[in-house]
């Protein structure tokens, strides 16, 4: 039976106010400031004479390089999301279904561990593994499997490996919650009706975990396209993504206006994704809220 009828705003709604204040002061104001700076010739806070300009946006449109940067960023984001999903799902399934409390705790630790290593150090660890003289290449060479080091980093693949490693925990934890709520008996019922375990998974568990897949993918994608440290270190500065370009514009070209314009583009991409996600989720699950 449905709960209440026509939604009436009640006193609990007031609880949004502290967050609204935080967002107004520490999100809308700063981001608004950035948005303003993206259409000005200089920093209005410190310079008296600034004028309106669209040159920062025009620069993106006029030079195909920036479009390529955007597409590289999105491509890396998509691959990262896809790989994180493929390797995150089995782990999430295991975590959701494991019976032993200790086993669950150990898995949780293992999943959380990459998040706790510290982004900078973790990325250096990956460099140790993936570089030409790295662990993997040294092992492969000493086993005689390869003669010359494999190119495992300084390319998009290296970035994707690093990003997947960082963001898999987010995928796993999102999925675990959703898979855990799927009644195991549904899988059993499917198997009982003659489906192989694989088939039961495809027909029952996978469709039911779609909201989790979407939520996890959105989160990982959003984090991946705004990542900075990993792409810069594992890409060996030879792959340019939007956040790297933004940082470069801020720290080395001192062109905050252009950096802000690039940031606005990234924000618009991300927000359209959230909205599209909400829409899709509403279609697949009949549920209207984000989970």
């Amino acid at each position, binding site marked *: 039976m449905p709960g209440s009828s026509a939604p009436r705003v009640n006193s609990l709604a007031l609880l949004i106010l502290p967050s609204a204040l935080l967002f107004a002061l520490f999100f809308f104001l700063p981001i608004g400031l950035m948005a303003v700076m993206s259409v000005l010739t200089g920093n209005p806070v410190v310079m008296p004479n600034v004028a309106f300009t669209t040159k920062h946006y025009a620069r993106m449109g006029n030079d195909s390089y920036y479009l390529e940067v955007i597409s590289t960023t999105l491509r890396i984001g998509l691959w990262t999301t896809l790989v994180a999903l493929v390797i995150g799902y089995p782990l999430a399934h295991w975590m959701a279904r494991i019976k032993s409390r200790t086993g669950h705790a150990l898995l949780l630790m293992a999943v959380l561990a990459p998040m706790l290593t510290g982004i900078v150090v973790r990325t250096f660890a990956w460099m140790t593994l993936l570089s030409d003289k790295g662990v993997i290449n040294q092992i492969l060479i000493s086993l005689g499997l390869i003669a010359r080091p494999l190119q495992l980093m300084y390319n998009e693949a290296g970035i994707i490996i690093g990003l997947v490693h960082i963001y898999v925990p987010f995928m796993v934890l999102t999925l675990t919650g959703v898979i855990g709520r799927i009644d195991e008996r549904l899988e059993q019922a499917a198997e009982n009706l003659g489906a192989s375990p694989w088939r039961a998974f495809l027909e029952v568990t996978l469709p039911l975990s779609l909201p989790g897949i979407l939520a996890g993918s959105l989160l990982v994608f959003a984090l991946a396209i705004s990542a900075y440290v990993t792409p*810069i270190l594992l890409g060996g500065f030879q792959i340019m993504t939007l956040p790297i370009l933004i940082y470069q514009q*801020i720290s080395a070209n001192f062109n905050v206006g252009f950096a802000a314009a690039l940031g606005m583009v990234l924000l618009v991409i991300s927000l359209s994704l959230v909205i599209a996600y909400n829409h899709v989720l509403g279609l697949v699950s009949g549920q209207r809220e984000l989970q």
Partner: protein
Amino acid sequence: MTASSRRFTLSRRRLLTGAASLGAGVIAAPYVARAEEPVLNVTGWGGKWGEVMKAEIGPAFETEFKCKLKTDTALPFLPKLQASSRSAPIYDVLHTNSNEQWAAVEMGLVEPKVDPKLVPNMADLYPYAVSDKIVGVCIFTSAIGLGMRTDKGYANISSWKELWDAKYNGVRGGYVIPVNSLGQAFLMMCGTLYGKGQTDLDAAYAALEKLKPIKLVDFTGAMEKLFLSGEVGLGVIHDSGIYRYDGQNQPIDFVTPSEGVLSLEQVLSITPGSKVKELGNAYINYMLRPDVQKRLAETVWYSPANKRVKLDAKYDAKLLTTPEKVSKLIQVDWKWYNAQKDEIDSRVNRIFRA
């Protein structure tokens, strides 16, 4: 806006009182500045430089000038200065590499020159430290040349052009030109080597194109690691990045190419809006004092700009401490470079795209 933010501060503070039990009290002490003393805000490096500054040289300055020295070691410095008010800059003295000083002076963030009358030690400097290629004053310099592994049988390297030899494919090292002074200086050197001079960009681009494959880093520290681990066998680096491993039995050495070494200057300048300019000048003068120069130079292997500094023999042998050695330094025209920076960046970003 201000009023509401202040209200927020109060409520936030009340909120945080609850969290204070989590050990806040233990480390609250360092925040309590001695209010009556003037505060000098400067920038500075981390690493060994930061250690010796924090441990000895900074405190000595504070005691001598009865002030509080606050050093920001969290890069990047210039965007922060850029964002802060011209009349109340977050730094009084800016310490960066030379190219950033030129960008800062273009934006009106620092004063173009330091007045030698207010900084008496400037009288004792080598000419390069106060040349027209320098904004403010240069306190130290390093030489940018080539670093090499000594255990790979690379014999008799004497020219920058050696770097283009195909046998270094896979072990060649360089810098991300848009973000690194060494990379930018090296680009200028490419123009000199293969074209009509520093400003021959087309020749430089062509040379860079031929330099691939090359491992790029954004900071000298990272290049040092590539050398130490053998990832890079021959690459661009400054002398201090090699010399600092002196005595540690590392198979690496610094090469001074016959075409000359590029100058990597450590530059100090004063911000126009600083309220403690007198103290700022005193700080610059202090940093140029022979004893301070000697201590820092022997810690981080930077060549002192003050010609009256006498280093211990081990350092004296390697660093640029005589007029003859200093004459090999090539200074880059950063003003010109910065004017072309956007164009250069967009070219080299494409060249080095994987």
